[in-house]
């Protein structure tokens, strides 16, 4: 099929990442070649969204020019090619995260994936949309408990709040310590025999901490609770294998892993997905429809109502090929080095407080800081005029910020295309912020 990279591009070769290799990779990202305020752009906001290499941009465009059509319907040649590309993309992405292809449901983004799960539980609880007796296991009601953590992104908190409001279940949470890191000893008192779901993030989008998935899965299994993993910040940056992690469900998004916006995925263990009640219903997900009732296809198609994000899926698969070619172990090792350099550098700056794991403790290439006496928006403004792009605000985690006693933080997040020079430029600019605002001489 005529999809794939254009011949002028070099495919990344495996090998440990270093500054030289990171610069070679960055050269393949058109946006990273631009300048901001007459200075070369230092992009340290990949935790919000990552940039896309030329091969990913080309893959989507090439597909649209050659094989684009509706999928799973129509018998013409182009429709068959499009369906093949769409399903091959699912297989590529499934392999990447250690899942079977039938265990990956396309969604618009991770937020929709988590909403899919919560609405499926809700529908089971309301007695509708079920797949027979087996769907009863997803019923929730008063007396049941759902456990999240205090460090969740709103996307893994608000849908559970709403599910509790609809079903009468109680929402509980695992607290964080003064650095914003999960207080694991508290888990035993938060997860109880009444706990039915434990939903937590793999890597915090605010602190960069890597949570102990095995410990939380064990605690949930002991009481027979389902586990849901927010893998938005882990799948792009670490080798992730959902089967090995043993979680029941997981969510991640394409645009944080070199892919397009508008596509994400829900992972679900095959035996659960097939009996999980549906969320969005309509065309494409049915077997037979009468005026009175309908029957549904097996997973994953039963969760994919309506025309799907076809070219986005194809492009996401190309992003996965790019990541595979670099090697996720290499990505993780390099970003750990960048993360430690960030953390250690920040810790040495007077008047700046590092949120999350302290230097030397495991983290990804992401760090949030509080510049004492200067609001994060003002920090971000000074960095922007220096060409350094970071995220400022609450990063969709208001409860965590409230717990840490701040309304907003400044967050830098790396990816495989960042170098130690990028980190140093950020640290250099951060060092001058308090002086600009006349808090230091």
């Amino acid at each position, binding site marked *: 099929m005529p999809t794939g990279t254009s011949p002028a591009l070099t495919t990344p070769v495996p090998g440990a990442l270093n500054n030289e290799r990171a610069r070679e990779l960055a050269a393949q990202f058109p946006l990273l070649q631009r300048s901001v305020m007459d200075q070369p752009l230092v992009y340290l906001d990949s935790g919000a969204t990552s940039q896309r290499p030329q091969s990913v941009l080309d893959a989507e465009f090439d597909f649209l020019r050659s094989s684009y059509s509706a999928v799973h319907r129509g018998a013409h040649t182009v429709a068959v090619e499009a369906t093949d590309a769409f399903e091959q993309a699912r297989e590529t992405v499934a392999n990447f995260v250690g899942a079977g292809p039938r265990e990956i449901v396309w969604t618009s983004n991770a937020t929709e994936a988590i909403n899919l799960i919560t609405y499926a539980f809700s529908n089971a609880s309301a007695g509708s949309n079920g797949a027979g007796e087996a769907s009863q296991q997803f019923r929730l009601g008063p007396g049941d408990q759902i456990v999240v953590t205090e460090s969740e992104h709103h996307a893994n908190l608000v849908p559970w709040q709403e599910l509790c409001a609809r079903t009468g279940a109680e929402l509980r949470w695992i607290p964080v310590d003064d650095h914003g890191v999960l207080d694991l000893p508290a888990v035993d008192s938060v997860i109880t025999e009444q706990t039915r779901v434990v939903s937590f993030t793999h890597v915090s989008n605010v602190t960069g901490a890597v949570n102990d998935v095995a410990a939380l899965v064990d605690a949930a299994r002991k009481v027979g609770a389902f586990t849901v993993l927010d893998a938005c910040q882990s799948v792009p940056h670490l080798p992730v294998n959902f089967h090995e992690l043993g979680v029941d469900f997981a969510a991640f998004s394409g645009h944080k892993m070199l892919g397009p916006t508008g596509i994400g995925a829900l992972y679900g263990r095959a035996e659960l997905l097939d009996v999980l009640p549906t969320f969005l219903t309509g065309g494409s997900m049915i077997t037979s429809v009468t005026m009175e009732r309908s029957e549904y296809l097996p997973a994953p198609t039963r969760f994919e109502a309506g025309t799907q994000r076809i070219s986005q899926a194809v492009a996401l698969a190309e992003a996965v090929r790019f990541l595979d070619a670099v090697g996720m172990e290499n990505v993780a090792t390099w970003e750990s080095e960048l993360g430690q350099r960030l953390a250690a550098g920040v810790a040495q700056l007077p008047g700046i407080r590092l949120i999350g794991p302290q230097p030397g403790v495991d983290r990804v290439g992401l760090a949030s800081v509080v510049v004492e006496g*200067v*609001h*994060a*928006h*003002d920090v971000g*403004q*000074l960095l922007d*005029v220096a060409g350094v792009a970071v995220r*400022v*605000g*609450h990063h969709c985690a*208001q409860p965590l*910020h409230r717990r840490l006693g701040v*309304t*907003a933080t400044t967050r830098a997040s790396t990816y495989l295309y960042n170098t130690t020079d990028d980190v140093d430029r950020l640290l250099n600019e951060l060092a001058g912020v308090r002086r*600009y*605002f*006349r808090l230091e001489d």
Partner: protein
Amino acid sequence: MSALDQMYQDVILDHSKRRIGEGLAGADATLLPGESAAGTHHEFNPTCGDQILVRVGLDGDTVTSLTWQGDGCSISMAAASVLAEMAPQTDVHTLRRQIDGFREMLRSRGTAEPDEELLGDGVAFAGVAKFVARVKCAALAWVATEAALMQAGVERE
């Protein structure tokens, strides 16, 4: 002067620390001695979490006090402070015109010549207009004041 220094004028950096009017004169619109009307309004910017509660006290058509409690960036805090310094003993209709003029200046993307006679120290925020992402910060307290005036029964002219 760089665009950055044009935004972070001395007036703004000073006011972001001095914070004139910080500390509410009253918890709500309950009248204090010497007031014939009062209003409060809470304004919140969900994108950054900045917030402000403004209380305006009036004696007839004269603003007797403008006090506030808030949390936010230097631009939003300085804008509240500048307004709180200007407002007392001002005629409410003048204050309204000042708020309208301030808004117009911020929306101009830096093209309008700010009216210093009307806006006083408020013209220091003209440089903010070039940074579209920060316009809401500067407007926060002024928009809250407009709503508080409405609550105090001040009608639009």
